[in-house]
């Protein structure tokens, strides 16, 4: 006989409310049903009252962790409607802010994950290192969480030489700290014992399940939008996607650790190649037509669809966030898992409910 156990909406490993109704036979999951809507904000409706520039600020507030990349993706989508080219320096500034976003997001996730398997002190370490990234974002953009670095046409703020020196110094300190974290997350006996072979998704299953980001790449799929021709600048920075083949919780963790190093390298490369000059192109008129823009956020691919009708307001804005793409995979990975392992499996998709409940 099976029992239904509600996992969430309030649960120690869930910083935000979402529920999984778990069907349990003894202590093994045999079925899972996600339940959403606890904090749905209706932002796609709300933008009807805002003009296309104000909508940038709404998009940045979808999520406090990947705020910069929401703003960047939205503004790139609207720029596609205007068919404008952003000055190179503006593009580099976006890349640097986006990668800083990825670093602090992954450090936040590593901390939550450590807490999930009972390493309280490791949680504190991860979040302590993350603070330095938030500090540098505050010094360079003026804000710790909502950076407002991107506007339609380019970047809204420039970095001074002092900012760049501070940024490089922070990265120099951060890199060995990430190495310390890697030693625990990748080599620790207890961590491996809990993660290796847990909730394995084959390459094909992860692909067909429509997963995104480290969830997709942890199963051997080399798919990362930074590697696409959509955003050429990443090719110039020598970007290669981080991929692991095993498809389990351990592989998804390793992808995120590798991406921390990759982001540090990308920022250094971007700083060394960033040209002087304008940071934005002036925009005139109102947007017309339809466009789709995708960007690789820390949790995976985000899809923005915008439709303009020649007025100051967009006719439609649709956002498909990576967690929205990753939640259905839980229906496939949770059955067969012990109840005690459910928090770890759920955490390895790095669920962001704020994004999901736009």
């Amino acid at each position: 006989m099976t029992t239904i156990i509600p996992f969430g909406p309030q649960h120690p490993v869930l910083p935000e409310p979402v529920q999984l109704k778990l069907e349990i036979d003894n202590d093994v999951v045999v079925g899972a049903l996600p339940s959403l809507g606890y904090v749905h904000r209706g932002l796609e409706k709300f933008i009807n009252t805002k003009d296309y520039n104000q909508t940038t600020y709404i998009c940045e507030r979808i999520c406090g962790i990947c705020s910069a990349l929401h703003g960047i993706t939205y503004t790139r989508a609207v720029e596609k409607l205007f068919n404008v080219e952003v000055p190179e320096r503006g593009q580099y500034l976006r890349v640097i802010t986006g990668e800083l976003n990825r670093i602090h997001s992954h450090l936040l996730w590593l901390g939550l994950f450590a807490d999930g398997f009972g390493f309280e002190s490791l949680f504190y370490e991860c979040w302590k290192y993350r603070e330095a990234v938030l500090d540098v974002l505050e010094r360079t953009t003026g804000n710790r969480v909502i950076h407002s670095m991107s506007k339609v046409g380019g970047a809204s703020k420039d970095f001074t030489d002092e900012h760049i020196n501070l940024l490089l110094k922070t990265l120099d300190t951060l890199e060995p700290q990430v190495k310390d974290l890697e030693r625990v997350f990748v080599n620790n006996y207890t961590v491996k014992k809990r993660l290796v072979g847990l909730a394995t998704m084959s390459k094909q299953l992860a692909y067909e399940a429509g997963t995104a980001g480290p969830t997709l790449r942890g199963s051997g799929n080399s798919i990362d939008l930074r590697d696409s021709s959509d955003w050429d600048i990443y090719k110039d920075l020598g970007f290669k996607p981080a991929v692991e083949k095993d498809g389990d919780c351990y592989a998804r963790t390793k992808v995120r650790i590798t991406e921390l190093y990759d982001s540090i390298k990308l920022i250094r490369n971007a700083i060394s190649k960033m040209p002087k000059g304008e940071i934005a192109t002036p925009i005139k008129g109102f947007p017309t037509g339809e466009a789709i823009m995708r960007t690789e956020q820390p949790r995976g691919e985000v899809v923005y669809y915008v439709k303009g009708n020649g007025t100051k307001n967009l006719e439609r804005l649709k956002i498909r966030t990576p967690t929205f793409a990753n939640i259905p995979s839980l229906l496939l990975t949770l059955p067969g898992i012990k109840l005690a392992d459910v928090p770890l499996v759920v955490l390895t998709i790095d669920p962001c409910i704020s994004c999901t409940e736009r």
Partner: protein
Amino acid sequence: MLENEVEIKNSAELLKTVEGLKNDGYRYATMICLKANDGHDLIYIFDKDYKLKNLRYFVKPGEKPKSVSGIYLCALLIENEYQDLFGLTFEGLAIDYKGHLYLTPNSPKAPLA
């Protein structure tokens, strides 16, 4: 009109095309719903090698579009979202929240419709 867009005439053609895309190795990205001429436009978005393929299907007023969640399970959340927000009814949904994925019985009905 989006780049690489194909117009779909009826639900049988839709299911056949989506099945074909899956066999050709396309990944389901998402679906867009728009109000159009008293009905709705559904734009199904698929990805392969970073190239998008878009299917546009016009849903007539009162028509119940067929769910593609039997082909791509991951489509179930977005189809349920549009049942909530646009008041559409998808036939054959793998899991049907019956208009209550986000909305409670006291919420406004079909707020984006």
